[in-house]
């Protein structure tokens, strides 16, 4: 009749234990393994720092011959002519900064707006009101809908970042460029005297590149800004409402200033991403060595220059391209370190509260 319960099983197992086998200090082998494992983790962690040093050193070392030959004139000349062995990258530096800044303006406007939309819970609120009209707002299934939709919206915005950049490039070539060409050429005809519209859009150009680039940096800005807005202590919001402030007086007067460091850090990191983005630009910016402010003119960026020239580089070109890579590395490292520092300060400030 005796049914064996789980408790009996455990009791039997415990009775079968040999104390001398279990209650013993770690053997020498175990201690050696422990020490080796700890050292391995330590070495791997150190390797990450070493990797950054190695990255910089490898590119700088390979760029040395070009640096000696062209010096700093490489940075402010405008000719790129492999036949005459004349190389300079001012148009590419300008193109990189110009496209990134324009994309940053569009991307951060939409990115911060989306962050406010998400952190304020507009969608959940609207759905909740809709459900209440049908008296379903505490329904076991329908009642979960507001939270579910909020989560879905957040994931959809993150999905924008998951689409590979080469797919955005393909989309830009076959959808965006044909779509904006009539509008761009009309703008050129009517307002050609404005420097921004001084050329026609014949195919690839700065504007389609900026458009796609801003889509690609938007999720970064939204994710970081949303985290910063959500981290604002609720009591500040409640105090503002208690004083009679409207929702937007609270957002503009309390929430945004409090979260400003985090939002700024997100924008800086978005800028870093825009500077280093390659494929969308290599496919859409036109790869023309041209120094221009016109939105419709083809241009070039550092990353696109590398992408187009490295695959068929002759041994003579390699140091020059490495020098260009070093310039890009310097710009992005400075921007990224600055962004990471801003975010670290913002986090420290939030913790101090």
């Amino acid at each position, binding site marked *: 009749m005796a049914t064996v319960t789980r408790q009996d099983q455990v009791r039997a197992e415990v009775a079968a234990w040999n104390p001398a086998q279990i209650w013993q200090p770690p053997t020498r082998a175990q201690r050696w393994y422990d020490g080796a494992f700890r050292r391995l983790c330590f070495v791997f962690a150190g390797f990450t720092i070493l990797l950054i040093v190695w990255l910089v050193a490898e590119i700088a070392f390979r760029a040395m011959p070009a640096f000696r030959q062209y010096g700093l004139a490489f940075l402010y000349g405008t000719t790129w002519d492999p036949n005459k062995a004349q190389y300079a990258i001012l148009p590419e530096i300008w193109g990189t900064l110009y496209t990134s800044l324009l994309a940053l303006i569009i991307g951060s406007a939409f*990115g911060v707006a989306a962050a406010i*939309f998400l952190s304020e819970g507009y969608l959940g609120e609207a759905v909740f009101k809709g459900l209440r009209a049908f008296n379903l707002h505490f329904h076991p299934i329908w009642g979960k809908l507001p939270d579910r939709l909020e989560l879905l919206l957040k994931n959809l915005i993150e999905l924008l970042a998951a*689409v590979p950049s*080469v797919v955005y490039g*393909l989309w830009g070539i076959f959808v965006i460029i044909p779509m904006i060409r009539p509008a761009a050429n009309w703008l050129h005809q009517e307002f050609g005297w404005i420097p921004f519209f001084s050329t026609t859009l014949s195919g690839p150009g700065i504007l389609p590149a900026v458009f796609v680039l801003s889509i690609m940096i938007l999720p970064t800005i939204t994710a970081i800004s949303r985290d910063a807005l959500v981290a604002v202590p609720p009591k500040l919001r409640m105090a503002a409402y208690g004083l009679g402030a409207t929702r937007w007086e609270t957002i503009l007067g309390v929430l945004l200033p409090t979260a400003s460091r985090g939002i700024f850090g997100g924008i800086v990191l978005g800028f870093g991403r825009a500077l280093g983005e390659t494929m969308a630009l290599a496919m859409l910016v036109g790869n023309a060595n041209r120094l221009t402010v016109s939105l419709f003119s083809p241009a070039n960026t550092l990353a696109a220059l590398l992408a187009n020239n*490295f695959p068929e580089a002759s041994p003579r070109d390699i140091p020059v391209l490495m020098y260009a890579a070093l310039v890009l590395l310097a710009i992005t490292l400075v921007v990224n370190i600055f962004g990471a520092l801003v975010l670290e300060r913002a986090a420290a400030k939030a913790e101090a509260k």
Partner: protein
Amino acid sequence: MSKDSVSSKQEFIPAQNQPAPNPLEGVDLAELELSLYRPRTLTSILLSSLVTCMTFLALIPLFAVLWMLIWRGGQKLSLSLFTQLPPAPLEQGGGFGNAVIGTLIMVGLAALITIPLGVLTGLFLAEAKESKLAETVRFAAKVLTGFPSILAGVFAYGAVVLATGGFSAVAGAIALSILMLPTIILTSESAIAMVPAKMKEAAIGMGATGAQTAWMVLLPTAMPGILTGIMLAVARAAGETAPLLFTALFSNYWLISSGRADLMQPTASLAVLIYNFSGMPFANQVELAWAAALVLVLIVLIFNLIGQSFSRPQIQQ
């Protein structure tokens, strides 16, 4: 002494015969009304609608891209795409079987390099929280997160392609692993740091060594979070083009020839195929590029979804 304090207290008692001051005096009560005629309320509602419109505008590109992929890529999609080699110019038909295999092999190789390195570094960071080295490593990983993917390619070109004398799958995998490393380090660190301290203390209290605690308590408990990080890193690496352009280059042939894979030769990948074919003036190649883009997005989405499915049970805890 006592007299003074009594008299000072009495000053604060309001005189009975004076009327209490009206707290609302000077306040325009109409200003607090929730009405569209009030500029304050109107501004608030207008800005709310603006933010709503901008958020949904920002989502339009996502749906536009997905729609184009399904419409133009879906037409071409068939099983033969996965068994055939890329076509020559003006040739009809063809597929990208070698590119699918190339992408999977390079991403797999990169994962093999990165997972031990990243997870153990994350373990180190979670255990040695405050040490100087840990803080430097954490900062290095954060800086690497924003590292431009093309520069990973430049590095692998210098360190592997020039050193071994040719484009290869290994060079591509090393370039990809640099991009995967920071994601894996940072997600493993946060997953391991979230393991309740009492579990770790219980293991140490029972006499487990550090290595035993790590393998039997910390890593198994943090496994969902670590797997999420790995899947997100794999998804990102699968979609990367720039680091492969001049490390793995491209190839029109199968990676596996006469029964064995040669990892030291140029290798095709889906992303580079899309880039190469998108610039060609031939309709067949452009259609193949759309189909390849659909396959690539599906691969990336599947890895993303797998990653999120690991992280879900953890949120509920």
